[in-house]
């Protein structure tokens, strides 16, 4: 049932309507500007709308209702205090163009967040401007480009990206006018140093690296990688997608990275909101400070303000009309304050403990680890290639069956280089009891794969809909509801 199906011509919510003006409009809009056709929006009561969207929400799996071990996404508990306090009426009411002296409370939070992020990343400067991880990547690569071109070093046309990287990495490099070249990964999950040495050179603008990588392991040769890239004149970019694994333990700045983006909706627990909003602040080493995206918050004489083009004339510019996803940043600030320095280190410790525990338990249950000789970071990969060869059951079948068992599925088929893979990230906020229940479900599924594979191939059975026809969705495009003619 769509909201449009509930619509009744003429039904209104008059309590939501503005009071009609007592007098006619003094300056009516000329007729040729006026709309002739009425837009098709629902005509429902407030109760209809509240009931409809409340019921729709119940068709979602979410962290608040299910264990959500979605690898690479860090689906940890989003503390309710962060939402409640970020939505205090004064914060919500403040206009983005209001003078800075009307927002000192808000700006103090932003400044302190910036300073904390500088510390945890070990970078010289941070801008909170990017609105998501991918925009942070864009900003980071654009700063690399600005740096090279300020030096007249215009032969650098290539960004190197491991083939295990998120798809955003090569896509961001291209948006900055670079070509993306992929580097091979060895059988232990590390960047292939020989392959790297073979391709770096005067055309290398930089290398984008996720560490721990998307394969769930720490890049042990990071110092050699740094040497190779820096010796060739390239810069080192840290994709902070997996910062949760090393928060407070290792600083990307200490690993020699020149620029980093963080995903606050992962590491700093702001809500994923059904797809966003996120926030992707960037941190830089000293040599990239002049290029930070606007605005940056500064403090002088106990007053805070946002810097603009006059303060940072070499900035790569603005990424949003105002100051980025301010409300997301406020939630991240509150979360950081609740954790404090001790709490941040515990994040990495318990995310890592949970991942390694779950990895060992799944191995004992009969699953195949993609990198059995390695420690898990905060996530790890199992590969179901053997299972598929024996039973025909795929990683997707296992993922769908997990939905029946009351768990959200892990990330499937990413990274692309591990066949039939599940990327599993339990996060630090889940208890041992939850992890054990998940292991029990995975044991049952493995038994089903051998005894009754059709149950898996036809899963899920208990969700609001069963497996959907994606081919039909793409071939017979139906992207909008239209009233019957």
């Amino acid at each position, binding site marked *: 049932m*769509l*909201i449009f199906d509930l619509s009744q011509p003429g039904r209104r919510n008059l309590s939501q309507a*503005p009071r009609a003006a007592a007098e006619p409009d*003094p300056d009516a809009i000329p007729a040729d500007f006026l*709309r002739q*056709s009425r837009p*098709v*929006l629902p005509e429902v009561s407030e109760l209809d*709308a509240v009931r409809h969207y409340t019921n*729709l*929400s119940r*068709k979602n*799996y*979410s962290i*608040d209702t299910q264990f959500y071990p979605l690898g690479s*996404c860090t689906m940890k508990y989003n*503390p309710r*205090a962060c939402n409640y306090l970020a*939505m205090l009426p004064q914060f919500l009411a403040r206009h*983005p163009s*209001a003078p800075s002296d*009307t927002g000192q409370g808000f700006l103090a*939070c932003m400044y302190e967040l910036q300073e904390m992020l*500088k*510390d945890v990343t070990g970078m010289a400067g941070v801008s909170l401007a990017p609105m*998501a991880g*991918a925009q942070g990547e*864009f900003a980071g690569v*654009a700063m690399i480009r600005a740096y090279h071109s300020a030096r007249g070093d215009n032969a650098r046309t290539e960004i190197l990206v491991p083939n295990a990287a998120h*798809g955003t990495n*090569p896509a961001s*490099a291209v*948006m900055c*006018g670079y070509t993306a070249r992929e580097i091979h990964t060895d059988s232990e999950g590390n960047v292939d140093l020989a392959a790297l040495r073979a391709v770096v050179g005067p055309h290398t603008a930089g290398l984008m690296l996720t560490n721990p990588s998307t394969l769930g392991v*720490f890049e*042990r040769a990071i110092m050699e990688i740094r040497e190779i890239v820096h010796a060739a004149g390239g810069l080192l970019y840290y994709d902070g997608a997996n910062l949760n694994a090393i928060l407070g333990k*290792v600083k990307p700045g200490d690993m020699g990275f020149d620029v980093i983006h963080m995903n606050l909706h992962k590491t700093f627990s702001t809500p*994923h*909101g*059904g*797809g*966003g*909003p996120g926030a992707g602040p960037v941190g830089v080493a000293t040599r990239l400070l002049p290029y930070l995206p606007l605005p940056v918050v500064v403090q002088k004489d106990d007053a805070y303000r946002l810097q603009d083009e006059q303060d940072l004339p070499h900035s790569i510019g603005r990424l949003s*009309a*105002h100051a980025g996803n*301010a*409300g997301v940043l406020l939630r991240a600030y*509150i979360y950081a*304050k*609740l954790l404090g*320095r*001790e*709490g941040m280190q515990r994040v990495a410790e318990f995310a890592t*403990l949970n991942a*390694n525990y779950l990895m060992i338990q799944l191995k004992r249950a009969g699953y195949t680890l993609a990198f059995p000789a390695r420690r898990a970071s905060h996530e790890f990969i199992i590969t179901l290639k053997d299972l598929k060869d024996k039973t025909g059951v795929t990683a997707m079948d296992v993922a769908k069956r997990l939905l029946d068992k009351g768990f959200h599925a892990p990330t499937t088929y990413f990274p692309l280089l591990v066949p039939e893979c599940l990327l599993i990230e339990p996060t*630090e906020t889940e*208890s041992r009891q939850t992890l054990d229940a998940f292991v029990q479900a995975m044991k049952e599924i493995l038994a089903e794969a051998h005894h009754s594979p059709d149950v898996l191939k036809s899963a899920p059975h208990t969700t609001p809909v069963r497996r*959907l026809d994606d081919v039909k969705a793409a071939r017979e495009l139906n*992207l*909008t509801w239209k009233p019957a003619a």
Partner: protein
Amino acid sequence: MPFIPHTKEDIDAMLAVIGVASIDELFDEIPPALRSAGLKHVPSGMNEMEITRLMHERAERDGRRLNFIGAGAYEHHIPAAVWQIATRGEFYSAYTPYQAEASQGTLQLLYEYQSMMASLTAMDVANASLYDGASALAEAVLMAVRLHKTSRRVLMPATIHPAYRKVVHALVRDQNIELVTVPYCARRGHTIPNALESYQGGDYAALVVPQPNFFGVLEPVDELTAWAKANGMLVVAVVNPVSLALLQPPGVWAGGGADIVVGEGQPLGVPLASGGPYFGFMACRKAHVRQMPGRIVGATVDRDGKPGYTLTLQAREQHIRRSKATSNICTNQGLAVTAATIYMALVGADGLADVARASHANACRLAQALAKLPGVSRAFSGPVFHEFVVQLTEPVESVLRSLKAQGILGGFALTRDYPELGDALLVCATETKCDDDLMRYADGLQRILGSCVVAASSALQSSTI
């Protein structure tokens, strides 16, 4: 431990299973030289009571003022139900609906949202959101260049939001795209169709058309669209979604309509909140949908033939196409879109038109009242939606400071972005302003300008006759 449930027994049992003596041993693959010396600038943690006190203090310090600033972010009434439902954990703490069977709530809501936005803009299809209005315009410029195939130059009127023009520049400049500024009519405050003739034959991929424009003035969209089409360009519309309840939607401009429509979705139920999170919307022709960036939801059926919804056309996106994707966007603004969908359902087409009409009426009444004050004049004669520009005989920054001292945020100073307009101020009044609010502004401004030939409140009253 904050947000970590492990008991001492849990930790010991888990370490035993793994076969290590301590949690620290789990980090043994990290070169010891890299281990952090600790966090010096992160303070110790607070409990919830302490952070609650701190945040209340900071919120109270910021306070609230009577706001007449618009300039791309607009204060509208937001029904209580909007965010109470949007922040239900099932929406708030879910992720991107990649597992469709476990995400039908989000997916169906997005399908409803796409339908509402397509109807509001009178376009065929809409995506599931981009970051904000400005970055959505940058994506539209990139999309128009891809569609046009031969030209990489785009015409950008000077009446487009200055921050939007800066954002577009920042986001497209490394892709060898040229943005050419089109001047505006100093008297009427909109783009001059005749002035476009100097661009004739210049090989441009697209003309961007804002409606209303940054000055709040209505652009001659039919003439601009017709000219662009006659010259082989695409038309990219930048529109305010609330205004679309009253104004001709871009899908019908000049008959054939715009090709790509973008805008800032914030006016649809999203609070001002110091600038975000908002959301950008984008709609286009069905023929162009494969060049559209961002997530798109489609209707389909499940294996039992039951209707359902799923992310579709994913081969456009970075997680499949990598360096050849239409955009690098991954995370979008889902929760803000959730709020906007609930908002549109609660107000409906008539309610949205009422909001638009009341906003327009309030802006016009305030404009008339202010224009009667000595030392204030209207900058432009073109018709407006809910914002207008006045020119002052006193320095605009000091006038704004004085208004602020009275608890009034008087508008957005144009001196920096449009120095040719002198001491000019962009003022907005939406449906949230009552007669007393408008009078307070007019009286306050009159006091500041230091003249009392006509009482401002009587100026307001006479304007409403």
